[in-house]
């Protein structure tokens, strides 16, 4: 019964989205209808929320008469994964997408009090249209609440690789990011309809961009962390189509964050900002299409269905095509904003945008090239990581070199020589760090040392900007303290985000260049040498998990005879899906990690049992996850800035 109510609520939400779209557009002219449009937006969200609650409830009580539950759940699964199973499948995740889409619409309706009535009403109308498309898709083509004629006694269970805390929370964060860009998209379309994009518009659109981008950062980091320790390959980024699909909206979102600042502060670049706002959500939808249609072979993807791919592509083509057509029609009429000199903060942000979009283009080209090649030449190919590393690395390297100059250069007309003068100390620190790494870390690697220096440069540059603003080391301490406490949260947010990027670069370069790998089949008592460490397989026991059986290895790690840690990797067998997975054991040594995988049992030369033990020493790997966390925190800190919350002027 709950499930039928949920399905009914979902259909109701579809109807309310239609009402929201119609009332939203009509309400821009007749204010009496605008309130009804807001009500419809909140109602649509309530409807989808009820449907989602019904699905979660069906998962929790293991109602196997629901097709989706039977295919993705199991009575023996822990509660967290029963709940997470609700968004672990294609159908459920589309419902989550709709939940967040209508949720953002309801948030605009409920919290957008300071918005001009026309803009708000139209934005809600566009959001309603998007909701209509995706809800129609969910209801008619991928209904998660469909019943099964002959319910099975036991479910097929969620893929054990997905039964993991990081992956339970990865989709909600990722979707908050993806779908968060829908609000910016709606604002952009509404502004194009009105024919006015000004500083005030950018100030309204910016918090939504910040929120979406921060969530997306966390979502991607969680996904990467999951791939790192659950797939057992020791890597954290593979330039796989699915990873690229989530990365492209992130890059465009980052460009949008910066260009929106220019539009807000200086009224310039308004057309470009609107273009990026449209592009960000377009890339989100492209990601949804790439992941679900199976047009590209990926190491991690949903079970694919080509007919759904066609539908998703139609939704993408329809919404983005209409939006960009509108852009082409209305953009030339947008008022050009303030002028700025070639040496100014605006110009540096333009440079940032050019590099970020070029990098996005390169990632998109590499991701879609196999499709183009297969269509033209008829042979399937893949584009390997070297391509991405080269193109993306060079473009982003240039962006990182220029980054610290941005916040230190004045708006409108800046003095690059003066900015360079203020960055002397940061440059010295970066060069010193690079040389120390080059001289002391063996084997010597010049390029990676340069990368580490670049990371240090970005961090030191971010700190130099704070020092400059607070006149640290120049003014007496009380004044510095007064200035420190007086800095707006937005400034701290920027510093934190930039420093976080630097931390990430440090970790990514160091880990990639100096990771150590070793693998061998060990009998009990056998030893494996991993760089400076010795791994000894002490014992292998069996463990009874809630829904799996496991072999657990007890391994001691020593360094020059002294014990370091005792990892216990597992190899689990899930009887429900007849699958086995390896559970990686991680030892934290400062910010570095030792990563141990217990492979399958095989015969040793003397006939006894042996286990393949694979191990990595991943130096500084935790910085790779700390960096994005700092970036997301920086975004949220900026979001909490008073200016963004309250300065939205209430115009008559």
């Amino acid at each position, binding site marked *: 019964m709950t499930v039928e109510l949920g399905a009914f609520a979902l259909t109701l939400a579809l109807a309310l989205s239609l009402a929201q779209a119609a009332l939203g557009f009509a309400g821009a002219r007749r204010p009496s209808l605008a309130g009804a449009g807001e009500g419809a937006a909140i109602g649509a969200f309530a409807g989808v929320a009820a449907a989602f609650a019904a699905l979660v409830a069906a998962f929790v009580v293991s109602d196997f008469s629901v097709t989706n539950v039977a295919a993705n759940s199991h009575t023996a699964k822990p509660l967290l994964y029963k709940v997470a199973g609700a968004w672990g499948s294609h159908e459920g995740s589309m419902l989550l997408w709709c939940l967040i889409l209508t949720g953002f619409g309801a948030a605009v309706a409920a919290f957008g009090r300071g918005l001009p009535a026309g803009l708000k009403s139209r934005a809600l109308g566009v959001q309603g249209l998007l909701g209509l498309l995706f809800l129609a898709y969910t209801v008619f083509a991928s209904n998660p609440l469909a019943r099964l004629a002959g319910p099975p006694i036991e479910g097929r269970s969620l*893929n054990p690789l997905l039964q993991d805390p990081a992956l339970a929370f990865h989709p909600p964060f990722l979707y908050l990011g993806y779908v968060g860009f829908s609000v910016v998209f709606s604002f952009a379309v509404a502004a194009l309809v009105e024919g006015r994009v000004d500083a005030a518009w950018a100030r309204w659109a910016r918090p939504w961009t910040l929120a979406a981008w921060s969530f997306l950062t966390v979502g991607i980091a969680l996904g990467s962390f999951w791939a790192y320790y659950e797939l057992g390959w020791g890597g954290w980024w593979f330039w796989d189509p699915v990873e690229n699909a989530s990365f492209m909206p992130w890059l465009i979102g980052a460009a949008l964050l910066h260009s929106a600042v220019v539009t807000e502060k200086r009224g310039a670049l308004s057309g470009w900002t609107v273009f990026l706002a449209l592009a960000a959500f377009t890339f989100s939808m492209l990601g949804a299409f790439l992941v679900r249609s199976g047009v590209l072979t990926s190491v991690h993807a949903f*079970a694919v269905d080509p007919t759904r791919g066609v539908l998703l592509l139609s939704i993408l083509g329809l919404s983005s095509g209409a939006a960009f057509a509108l852009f082409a029609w209305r953009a030339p009429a947008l008022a050009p904003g303030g002028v700025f000199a070639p040496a100014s903060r605006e110009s540096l942000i333009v*440079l940032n945008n050019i590099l970020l979009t070029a990098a996005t283009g390169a990632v998109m080209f590499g991701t879609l090239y196999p499709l183009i090649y297969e269509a033209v030449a008829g042979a*399937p*190919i893949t584009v*390997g990581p070297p391509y991405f590393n*080269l193109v993306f690395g060079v*473009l982003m390297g240039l962006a990182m070199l220029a980054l610290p100059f941005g916040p230190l250069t004045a708006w409108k007309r800046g003095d690059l020589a003066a900015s360079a003068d203020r960055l002397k100390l940061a440059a010295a620190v970066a060069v010193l760090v690079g040389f120390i790494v080059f001289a002391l870390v063996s084997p010597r690697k010049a390029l990676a040392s340069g990368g580490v220096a670049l990371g240090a440069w970005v961090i030191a540059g971010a700190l130099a900007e704070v020092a400059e603003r607070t006149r640290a080391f120049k003014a007496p301490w009380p004044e510095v303290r007064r200035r420190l406490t007086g800095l707006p949260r937005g400034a701290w947010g920027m510093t934190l985000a930039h420093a976080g990027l630097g931390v990430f670069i440090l970790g990514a370069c160091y880990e990639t260049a100096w990771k150590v790998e070793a693998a061998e089949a060990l009998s009990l008592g056998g030893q494996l040498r991993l760089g400076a460490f010795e791994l000894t397989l002490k014992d292998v026991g069996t463990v009874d998990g809630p829904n799996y059986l496991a072999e657990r290895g007890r391994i001691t790690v020593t360094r020059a005879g002294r014990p370091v840690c005792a990892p216990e990797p597992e190899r689990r067998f899930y009887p429900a899906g007849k699958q086995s*997975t*390896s559970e990686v054991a991680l030892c934290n040594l400062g910010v570095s990690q030792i990563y141990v995988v217990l492979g399958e049992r095989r015969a040793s030369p003397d006939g006894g049992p042996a286990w393949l033990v694979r191990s990595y020493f991943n130096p500084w790997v935790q910085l790779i996850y700390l960096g994005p966390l700092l970036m997301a925190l920086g975004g949220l800190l900026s979001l909490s800035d008073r200016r963004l919350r309250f300065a939205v002027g209430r115009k008559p």
Partner: protein
Amino acid sequence: MTFWPKSRTARRRLTILLAVAPVLALAAGLTLWGLRDSISLFYTPAQARAAHVAPGRAVQLGGLVLPGSVVKHPDGRVAFAIADKQETARVSYQGDLPDLFREGQGVVAEGSFDAAGVFQAKRVLAKHDEKYMPREVADALKKQGEWRGDGAAPAYGKP
């Protein structure tokens, strides 16, 4: 400065063009250069034989894992054979096989052939979904008339 236009909008456009062009040129150049040795073609064993893939060239080899061909060596190396209907190729792989690697199932191996004709795999892909058949493998097998949908036992070429 004769080429510098007088109109303000034209000057603005030219400035933007001058800023964007070098980055685009750099990106395009890098893209073409990067693509040269990052593209790997997909073959089934029979296609690889027919195309005379040069040793050392990075390619992907896909097909079904020949039942009974998997040998796990104590040093961590795994040897198995990938087969399509006409041909079988020996594969050597250093590392842990994916958890969903099974005999008789579709896989894609990335790597290159060595001088002896053994495929040295750097990575072996089998997918999360237990019904997974890599798309390239499914397409290639369909062309050979091998594909009979889920569950049908396929025939193999002679090792």
